């Protein structure tokens, strides 16, 4: 589990209250101020400050050589970011929405992920590919993807997904300093949902360390990103209404997974559920439940429940609230598992 300063810890640094997207922006700002080699590129990241304003103010501060509007071409963005990284820079490429990352899929899985290993360690690709992901904001079709499992299945890539402003900034800085390519998925549903105290200046939340958001003894629920909040709501409801004591583990890094924390929590509770927005089949929930039963079958008292998006394309916004795992579904699924 994370040993770094958590929100509220006195790091001596001044604090400001930021929401998640502001924290992302602050993370970029902080690193760019300190490291000239960090450049931001993507569609509308410059003057426009990003369609979600995640890069607001950076163009004005750092100029058009470091905050770069590119032509509309995702393979071009990621491919050229690989080249930028090879040339000694630290590019941060924005994909406007995760649904538009697929044209760059080949560059990510065939190259970013593999240049280190295929060159026997000679060439490395330290870069971050940021993408707002997930549903719930009534966006048009193809704007609500949550396909983290695709990237988790590709060795050589790291995948990170914060659920709080504090983590967003700290994980982003850690990702920017990481020697390997990181896909950084930002839960756009909660970009502006709440503010949190975020230290000014630099700090890292280390990669591959899950965070226990709520301690509990009856069941371990694993989740990340935007689904952390409805999971915590469900956990509170279950405590109040049914006296069920839920442990909520926010994975934060999806690849490489913090298997130790996952398994330890499970050994304590003996029951588990995974909550994610992606379709159930071959989603990351499968990996987690599969790992748990490999590592701790003898502790298992009930089937591990997957509370996930359905095996359909994301529907139009009219009914997306039925597609996403809502607190009510999460609660019901946890209860079923606890009562098994």
């Amino acid at each position: 589990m994370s040993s770094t300063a958590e929100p509220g810890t006195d790091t001596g640094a001044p604090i400001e209250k930021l929401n998640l997207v502001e924290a992302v922006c602050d993370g970029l700002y902080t690193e760019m101020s300190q490291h000239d080699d960090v450049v931001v590129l993507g569609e509308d990241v410059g003057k426009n400050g990003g369609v979600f304003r995640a890069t607001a103010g950076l163009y004005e501060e750092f100029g058009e050589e470091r905050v770069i509007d590119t032509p509309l071409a995702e393979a071009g963005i990621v491919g050229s970011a690989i080249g930028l990284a090879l040339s000694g820079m630290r590019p941060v490429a924005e994909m406007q929405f995760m649904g538009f990352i697929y044209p760059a899929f080949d560059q990510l899985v065939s190259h970013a992920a593999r240049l280190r290993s295929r060159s026997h360690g000679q060439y490395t690709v330290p870069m971050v590919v940021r993408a707002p992901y997930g549903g719930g904001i009534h966006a048009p079709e193809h704007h609500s993807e949550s396909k983290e499992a695709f990237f988790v299945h590709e060795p050589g890539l790291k995948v990170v997904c914060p659920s709080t402003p504090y983590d967003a900034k700290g994980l982003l800085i850690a990702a920017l300093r990481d020697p390997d390519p990181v896909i950084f998925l930002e839960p756009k549903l909660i970009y502006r949902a709440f503010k949190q105290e975020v230290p000014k200046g630099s700090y890292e939340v280390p990669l591959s360390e899950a965070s226990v958001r709520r301690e509990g003894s009856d069941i371990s629920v694993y989740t990340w990103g935007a689904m952390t909040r409805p999971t915590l709501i469900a956990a509170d409801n279950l405590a109040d209404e049914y006296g069920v004591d839920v442990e909520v583990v926010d994975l934060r890094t999806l690849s490489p997974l913090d298997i130790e924390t996952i398994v330890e929590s499970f050994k304590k509770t003996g029951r588990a559920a995974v909550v994610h927005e992606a379709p159930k089949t071959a989603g990351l929930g499968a990996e987690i439940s599969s790992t748990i039963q490999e590592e701790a079958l003898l502790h298992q008292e009930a089937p591990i429940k997957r509370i996930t998006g359905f095996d359909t394309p994301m529907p139009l916004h009219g009914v997306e609230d039925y597609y996403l795992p809502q607190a009510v579904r999460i609660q019901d699924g946890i209860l079923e598992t606890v009562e098994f």
Partner: protein
Amino acid sequence: MSAQKELNQQEPTSRVTTDTQPVQVLEADGSVCPNATVPDLSDEELLSMYEDTKLARRFDQRAISLQRQGRIATYAPMTGQEGAQVATSYALEQRDWLFPTYREHAAKYVHGVSLAALLKPLRGIREGYAVPDGVNVMPEYIPIATQIPQAMGMAWGNKLQGKVDHAVLCHFGDGATSEGDFHEGLNFAGVFDVPAVFVCNNNQWAISVPRERQTASETIAQKAQAYGIESVRVDGLDPLAVYQVTKAALSKAKNPAAGERRPTLIEAVQYRYGAHTTADDPSVYRDDDEAEEWKDKDPLDRLQKYLYKEGILDEEIDAELDERIETTIKNAITEAESVSEDPELMFEHVYEEMPDRLREQRDELAALREKYGDEAFEEVLE
């Protein structure tokens, strides 16, 4: 379906060229350009085209305000671009296929999609994308440029099946030309010589990125050189010019002369007067004044002035049209707002036959709704 749309079989006369000077038929004041030939359209057709353009502009205003009122979701306005949309679709025959983006509301409407069907997906209702048989319009394409190889493929399929009189018209923006799919689609079109017309609605902006940062080529039209196909630049704010070049391109697609190749890239030079979508604020990245120059050449005004000059239109008719348009749009809104989406529909049409696991998921959702009520699902997620 557009009022009085009729098939027009005339052989059009416009030049296909890669000159950087766009083809133009009407001057900004509605007079005919020197040396230009006015396309052979009847008075009724011209009036109908005008009515549809007018309707498009009014629809745009209403849609923007519906969005502000929270009655529809994010909307991509088309004001300034309706002239090109209406004109390209007027050039189509009913059997021709249309591949639109999220912005071609008027192009779809003229080719047979009802206004209510346009509004439904904006209200989250999927059936709006299921156009009636015989209306050859694909659902809008949101991932940029992805429609281009598909449009090419449909044109190719029609050709392989001997249906070369079914041309395909594919819309996309200036930004789309940077995507690999544009390149691959147009290269295939050249190699397989398919009956397709590729219309680049160069509105000078891809959200906040201006045309000159999208590509270093002087024109979009010249990109056709890479594919061995012809191209033409046209004043996209001149509906008659757009009609003319599109008609010519469609005619060549279906009936190329000896040595001529079927596909054409049309660069319709225009301007997005408004925001990229209702979620966008263009004042952040461009000068408000920029639009003014373009507005002087407004397509609706130009057509109106021409029709007045020609004596086809007068104030009385104009007022009648306004009234009819108002009613049409109002009815469409009422219709679109009278339906709502059943959550269970999302499980339908994933595959022709619903897999067992999907059936279980559908039943699971039904049971939860039964148990907790729909209110429990409508909680604000964030």
